[in-house]
């Protein structure tokens, strides 16, 4: 199949439909409202459910209800909306339900603005909601990769019975790029009948709950979840190494849109004979600590440069991986400003 030109938000909606996710509950918020607008027309074509909820609080709790019935349910939002959905994420994680959340991040805090940002890294990877849970977090850096991540997200959500977040930003959501759906494997939902609440005909009643008043039971439940997060750490680490070889002197670490900018900078530096590479975490939880740790032990690497569209959040994870072995510099833009390749090149020249 040939490529089609799609806006990021529309591609998200189409990818979900192709993943068999036709139950969508959402509330409008810029810069991702086009997902809802796309699905309001698209879902009726495939017999799906489109529901504009009264709030993000309601939309995300509708996801809980729909996921309990065994369907692939999802929502999309942007930063302030994700804050409101964090309550439901905690409950969905606790209840071990599969669900997909897409966050097209805008600049914050507070109402902030409607432009691209990576200010929700902590919220995504450290949990905006309460309690000891983790989201699986995927960070695409193109519209094509967003499609792949949305479809993968449903697969992973079902596999681990855990909420999965696709963490994009306003740029990913708003730009148009060619997309090839035929190259993306179509996920297939597993049989969920052993736990769904769909009426107890021919079996004992099923209960989906998150209350564990007995401390021993609650601890066991926490440990069960923790074991699952360990499985994710073992199986779901994703990253990209770009131009990282044994001669590499500076390694840039960046994800999503920032990584894409940095890739252009790396190409330019390479043309000028400088040995600079890019390490791009694709899964933000689980974070690719080990591969980054290995790179930090390479003799030629003199320094790391972390580039983010925030004041420095992922840099904490880079520090955990690199520790004191090599110096770690930071360059960030905020408020909806996107760093330019020239700015990144300027920062590299400070290090070489």
């Amino acid at each position: 199949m040939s490529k089609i030109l799609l806006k990021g938000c529309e591609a998200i909606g189409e990818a979900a439909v192709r993943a068999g996710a036709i139950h969508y509950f959402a509330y409008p918020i810029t810069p991702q409202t086009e997902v809802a607008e796309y699905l309001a027309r698209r879902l009726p074509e495939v017999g799906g459910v489109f529901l504009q909820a009264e709030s993000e609080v309601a939309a995300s709790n509708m996801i809980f209800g729909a996921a309990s019935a065994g369907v692939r349910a999802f929502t999309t939002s942007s930063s302030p909306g994700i804050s409101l959905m964090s309550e439901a994420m905690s409950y969905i994680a606790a209840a071990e339900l599969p669900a997909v959340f897409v966050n097209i991040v805008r600049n914050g805090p507070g109402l902030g603005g409607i432009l691209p940002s990576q200010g929700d890294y902590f919220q995504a990877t450290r949990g905006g909601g309460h309690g000891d849970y983790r989201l699986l977090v995927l960070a695409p850096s193109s519209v094509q990769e967003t499609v792949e991540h949305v479809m993968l997200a449903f697969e992973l959500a079902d596999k681990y019975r855990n909420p999965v977040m696709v963490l994009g930003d306003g740029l990913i959501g708003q730009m148009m790029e060619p997309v090839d759906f035929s190259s993306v494997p179509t996920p297939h939902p597993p049989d969920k009948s052993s736990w769904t609440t769909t009426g107890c005909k021919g079996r004992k009643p099923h209960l989906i709950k998150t209350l564990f008043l007995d401390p021993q039971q609650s601890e066991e439940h926490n440990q069960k979840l923790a074991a699952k997060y360990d499985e994710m750490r073992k199986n779901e680490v994703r990253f990209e190494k770009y131009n990282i070889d044994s001669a590499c002197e500076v390694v840039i670490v960046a994800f999503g849109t920032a990584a894409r900018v940095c890739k252009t900078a790396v190409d330019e530096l390479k043309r000028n004979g400088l040995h600079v590479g890019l390490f791009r975490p694709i899964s933000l939880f689980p974070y690719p600590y080990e591969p980054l740790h290995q790179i930090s032990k390479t003799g030629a690497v003199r320094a790391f440069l972390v580039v983010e569209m925030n004041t420095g959040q992922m840099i904490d994870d880079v520090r955990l991986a690199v520790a004191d072995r090599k110096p770690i510099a930071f360059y960030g833009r905020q408020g909806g400003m996107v760093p330019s390749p020239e700015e990144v090149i300027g920062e590299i020249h400070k290090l070489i």
Partner: protein
Amino acid sequence: MASNLIFQCPESMTDAITHYCPGCTHGIIHRLVAETIDELGLRERTVGVAPVGCSVMAYNYFNCDFLEAAHGRAPAFATGLKRARPDLIVFTYQGDGDLASIGTAEIIHAANRGEKFTTIFVNNAIYGMTGGQMAPTTLPGQVTTTSPFGRDVNTAGYPIRVRELLSALQTPAYIARVAVHTPRHVIEAKKAVRKAFQYQVQGRCFSLVEVLSTCPTNWGMTPIEATQWVQDNMVPYFPLGELKVPEEN
């Protein structure tokens, strides 16, 4: 032998001993719902949604599939579930803190969209599980742990009449208020609960039955005094009866 059997536990209830306080009417209301589910033959396709509050563990007493919701969000859970599986019979069971305070947005919009589930709204004019705090339905002058001098309507406003509030909406099919403090009232309550479920079976829009309930523990009364208090204080402020019934086709 079977011909002598005149009363038994509904199939839709478990035989678990409830955790409810002596004189609390949750047990009666549970039974009315369970009897209705039995009579309409719905148990195997019914899913209940429990609230946060005293009845958070209602699922221990109902013999059907159940979800346990976040505080106030039961109508959103029920919406997602019923939209995904319109063939199921879905009901939420919610108290006054859950439905009339933290979950106000969810219940109003579920009702207004005409979601095809049934809500059993248990109003005992107080927060039970957290130990007797003021609820949106606490009566004027009523003493609670957070209104120690009595509910002051100048600062807390007047109690919310949920039946009246939701009946202002055009979409809902059936909205009624009943009580269970006397056998006569229990019989009337059963009729309303049954209608609410029947309308759902017929595919009618949202139905809600508000049930005036007791909380002897947090009201500081004996069970007998509590039933009298419902009659003397709650019924005058929260009038009983149907306020919205389906328009005939």
